[in-house]
């Protein structure tokens, strides 16, 4: 890492450590002052904000300095891709921490809640940097275990506990599949580190023939499908997102999903290069099927929901389907894209990263708006949101921005990220896949606008009384909306970073 000569290599861990240290500081604070009162909650939120923003600043700074550090014998790698995603995780974490401040004000174990969030964030940062299958598995577990507890955090709420259990059971099964897949890959190639796996495959020294490796790859895809909530490993997602505290739903559906994708990008671009493995197992075909099924099922199911949070949950599955297109259209060759000097694969991965980034803000914002509604005791159905603008005009404007941006109207950057993604897929020659995505995208406008209609156009069924305006939640919702809109003019800068990161990986 040349520009950071003054810093030792292990300084590359700093963005990840920012999360980890914050988690520990929160534990320490809790042991000093175990009784929660309002002052300590403010302190906890403040510490959380500082920690997450520190991660954003550190990763942003390293990203500008551009360099790659390998640590622990190459099992852990800090490069542009990992830093990009760490910045994304930090931003989402900051929003979630800010939004949780009011949401959990009445609950017990606030410090534990925050530190679990930060432990999961630490895991995500590690996933982004993991360069060996073993490190990836440990990191994924570090994301999953706190997540199970966070989903079940509202322990007097049946839905929350049930969601936590369901998430845990599916999660445990997926982990088993994932780790078994890893063991098969190891058995076949004798390597765990991504580049060595690729080397072993290239030199054709596979133990047990290509079948073992193929099965291993398929199982690794299963593990990733669980993390990204892709069909058929999606059925925990609607339950978990609906039952979990709303800020956690936002956290899981934005940050945790992005963690799954960064792992997928790295594993499949580095460890299983398409040219080498296409003889044994053409994984783009698997992602093609996953992508079509995931986006179609997600969007159609979202259109039939009666509850807002569930609609957002299914729409989140649909968006995973869009990002999966990036892997489905992957070619493994250096075919140049429409963008001069950039391969189409880099464009695809960069576009996927951008969509996840934009999604991180608009989707977290949408869930935080739901958190705001839950905080006020507004019900769960669309009808319960009728005429909410009367009580919360500013938050309703923000929510409208999120929803239209999610639907792909150019009021936010969601339009651009989707467009670049589609362009990359067209560049790979998959016209029909884009047509399916466009149909899905058009359908999504229907169910997103249902909520917009409820917010602004319908009249409330019952009188609701809202007297408190939680500052933290409001700040988080408005902040997310502002970033969603600002990413529209700022899209070019961020996309350059994303594409550069993808090119560096390839």
């Amino acid at each position: 890492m040349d520009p950071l000569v003054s810093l030792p290599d292990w300084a590359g861990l700093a963005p990840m450590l920012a999360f980890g240290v914050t988690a520990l500081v929160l534990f320490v604070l809790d042991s000093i002052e175990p009784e929660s009162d309002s002052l300590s909650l403010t302190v906890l939120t403040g510490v959380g904000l500082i920690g997450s923003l520190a991660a954003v600043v550190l990763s942003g700074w390293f990203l500008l300095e551009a360099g790659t550090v390998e640590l622990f014998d190459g099992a852990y790698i800090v490069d542009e891709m990992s830093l990009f995603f760490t910045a994304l995780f930090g931003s989402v974490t900051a929003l979630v921490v800010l939004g949780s401040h009011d949401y959990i004000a009445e609950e017990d174990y606030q410090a534990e809640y925050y530190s679990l969030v930060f432990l999961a964030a630490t895991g995500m940062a590690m996933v982004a940097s993991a360069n060996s299958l073993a490190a990836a598995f440990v990191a994924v577990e570090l994301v999953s275990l706190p997540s199970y507890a966070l989903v079940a955090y509202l322990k007097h709420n049946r839905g929350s506990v049930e969601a936590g259990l369901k998430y845990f059971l599916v999660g445990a099964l997926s982990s088993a599949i994932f780790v078994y897949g890893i063991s098969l890959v190891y058995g076949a190639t004798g390597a765990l580190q991504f580049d060595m796996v690729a080397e072993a495959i290239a030199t054709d020294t596979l133990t047990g023939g290509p079948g073992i490796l193929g099965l291993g790859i398929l199982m690794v895809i299963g593990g990733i499908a669980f993390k990204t909530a892709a069909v058929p490993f999606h059925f925990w997602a609607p339950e978990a997102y609906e039952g979990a505290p709303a800020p956690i739903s936002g956290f899981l559906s934005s940050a945790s999903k992005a963690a799954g994708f960064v792992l997928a990008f790295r594993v499949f671009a580095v460890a299983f290069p398409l040219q080498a493995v296409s003889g044994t197992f053409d994984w783009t075909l698997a992602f093609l099927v996953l992508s079509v099924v995931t986006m179609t099922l997600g969007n159609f199911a979202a259109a039939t929901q009666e509850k807002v949070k569930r609609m957002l949950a299914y729409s989140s599955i649909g968006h995973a389907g869009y990002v999966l297109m990036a892997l489905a259209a992957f070619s493994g060759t250096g075919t140049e894209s429409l963008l001069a000097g950039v391969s189409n694969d880099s464009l695809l991965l960069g576009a996927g990263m951008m969509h996840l980034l934009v999604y991180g803000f608009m989707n977290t914002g949408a869930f935080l708006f739901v958190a705001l509604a839950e905080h006020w005791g507004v019900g769960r159905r669309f009808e319960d949101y009728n005429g909410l603008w009367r009580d919360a005009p500013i938050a309703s404007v923000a929510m409208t921005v999120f929803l239209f941006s999610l639907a792909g109207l150019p009021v936010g950057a969601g339009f651009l990220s989707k467009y670049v993604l589609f362009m990359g897929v067209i560049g790979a020659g998959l016209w029909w896949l884009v047509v399916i995505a466009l149909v899905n995208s058009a359908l999504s406008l229907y169910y997103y606008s249902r909520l917009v209609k409820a917010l602004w156009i319908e009249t409330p069924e019952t009188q609701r009384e809202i007297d408190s305006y939680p500052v933290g939640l409001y700040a988080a919702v408005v902040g997310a909306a502002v970033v969603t809109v600002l990413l529209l003019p700022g899209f070019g800068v961020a996309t350059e970073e994303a594409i550069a990161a993808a090119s560096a990986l390839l």
Partner: protein
Amino acid sequence: MLIEALLIATLLAAGVVFFAPDRYAGKLATALSVLPLAGSLWLWLDFEGSGNALLEGSDIAYETTIEWMDIGYTLQWHVGLDGVSLPLIVLTTILTTAAIVSAWTPIDERQSQFYGLVLLLEFGLLGVFAALDFFLWFVFWEVVLVPMYFLIAIWGGPRRKYAAIKFFVYTNVASLILFVGFLTLVFAMGDSVTTLGLPEVAQALHAGGAVGSIAGFAPETVKLFAFALMFFGFAVKVPIVPVHTWLPDAHVEAPTPVSVLLAGVLLKMGTYALLRFNFTMLPGVATDYAELIAAIAVLSVIYGAMLALAQQDLKRIVAYSSISSMGYVILGLVAYTTYGIGGATFQMISHGFISGLMFMVVGVVYNETHTRMVGDMSGMADRMPWTVGIFVAAAFGYMGLPLMSGFAAEVFVFLGSFGTPHLSLAPLFTAAAMFGIVIVAGYLLWAMQRTLFGEFDLGTDYEVGPAPLHDIAPLAVLLACVIVLGVNPDLFMGMIQDAINPIVDSLGGGA
């Protein structure tokens, strides 16, 4: 930087008004909407551009180009005006201010949001007419949908939600289709364009040979495909028969000030885009299929007028007659002569003022009587003489009375289309379209005869008196615009002809 100032002022005004107290919102919005109005008039007085902004040899007025991002193609913040877009900008700002004032009476709830959204709509419209980069243009094009959806769905009539969602879905699907159409064209052009700037694409197309084959289809097929998709996308917006069905619903349900903007400016987005994209970029395809397009245009004229003839609701009459009037625009465009395209562009402006005026005057009658049904009222002239006077004047403007802008526009269109070399059987098409005027005169005279004159009678229980001054004032302003443009079409016609001549010249001319 004048265009940017205009846009920013409008957007800021929208934001301020949106969160202002309801009591002052109407007056505040009026005051703030004067900013873009004054700005656009300044642009007009100070206009020094020449030529067509899309074609070579032009001098684009108030042009700014800033690189936005490079995603395969360089996207730019590229705005500028020529003789086609400037009159539409002026039309937009005048109509918006008039519509805001005309909303004082009918809009009695959630005023601040109403006026905020109207100003947001104005922002989008100004952007559509000023943008010279496809992506930027498309962003504004879509931005227009959002406030329009809310304006119909919240303040509309009894079936407002249905009308709003129909409008939204129709036009959004149309946007998607035209987006695909344009991008197909650009992809097929390969390396000959590096940006999505409209001038660059248009000039590359005019230079010839730019379109390659794509996915095994020959260049000519690709052009036809792109032309058809874009034509369809814009036809929905115009609207052209048979994709017009969203329009009567949207118009009838929308509150009057929104109808004014819908008929006055939103429909012109469609014809403006047809002129900019289809007819400027792909004149070859347009002339190849000139007869088909002219037939669709004449069908719109006649069918729209016949539908208007069958209506009982004054607003529906005006709505359907808009479809008819837009048919003249298409006929003028496909003629590809100076008078034809110039007349079509002039008709956009003229129809903007006249249809806005008609909707507004129907709205004023409705404010007093609470009905729009022809059978429910008669003899309005006794009770509200000023309003009725303007009503009659506007209707005659619609019928094309000389010295009003509609006359000038239609004469230009017919002069241009009668002798065009690009359209076989041109005199026949022109004669058929002219017949539309007879029908227009028929239904308007008949409707006025029944509602305005004769014994006073009203089917609803309302005291009918003269409308308040702030209802009459915008009517008078718009009527003045119609007459001024009728007496002196050259206020706009000079710059319009200057801007469309390059298109005509590229096909070998023809008056």
